[in-house]
């Protein structure tokens, strides 16, 4: 279960990443941020973002037009 949810639906690159970063900043290590997005580019972008920042991408799922990510802050 996520500790916080960020609804980034309807937002385009790079806003989902910028908003996720901002949300993660306010969270504790070990907490999980759920991000909802409709930007198809965000699938590759969140993988790259987590890879680079060391945060853990627990989930990357597609349901219809909505992409769901779960990021564990490290």
């Amino acid at each position: 279960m996520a500790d916080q949810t960020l609804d980034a639906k309807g937002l385009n690159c790079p806003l989902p990443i910028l908003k996720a970063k901002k949300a993660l900043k306010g969270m504790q290590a070990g907490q999980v941020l759920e991000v909802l997005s409709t930007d198809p580019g965000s699938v590759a972008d969140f993988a790259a973002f987590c890879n680079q920042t060391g945060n853990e991408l627990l989930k990357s799922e597609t349901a219809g037009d909505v992409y769901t990510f779960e990021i564990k802050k490290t």
Partner: protein
Amino acid sequence: MLDSADNTKKMSIIITKGTLDWAYPPFILGTTAAAMDVEVTMFFTFYGLQLLKKDLDLKISTLGNPAMEMPMMGMHMKMPNIVSTIPGVDRMATTMMKNLIKKKGVASIPDLREAAIESDIKMVACQMTLDLFEMDQKDLIDGITLGGAATYMEGALESDINLFI
């Protein structure tokens, strides 16, 4: 955010263009890099300095841009150069672009610039350009530093990525 114990990645961007469309690449890449823990320096020179003005009034021009197609009335429209010279056409194209930006959920340039400031991106205004174009630092946003080519080089030499836009 900036550890001086240094495996921090660094990026520098030289920004030379001051139109609405060309404002996007540097601000998108700069803010995204900062979100990915990269230490970013943005060096604004020549027309790029327009992007640092307190009052942003950015426009696009269709002139000399044969690749620009804008959706309009269900089709994609290209502008012949002769049309671009008619007064008001650039204003109209700018309004169309701003409407599209909103409609497609793309960040505005003021928002991206705000994000850049919030994420501690170092912004440097070219002193020589200020002199050349008789611009006043009072007209630029707060928190920027002034510098020249040597200032840029010092940062660029220790950067992992250097872009010229």
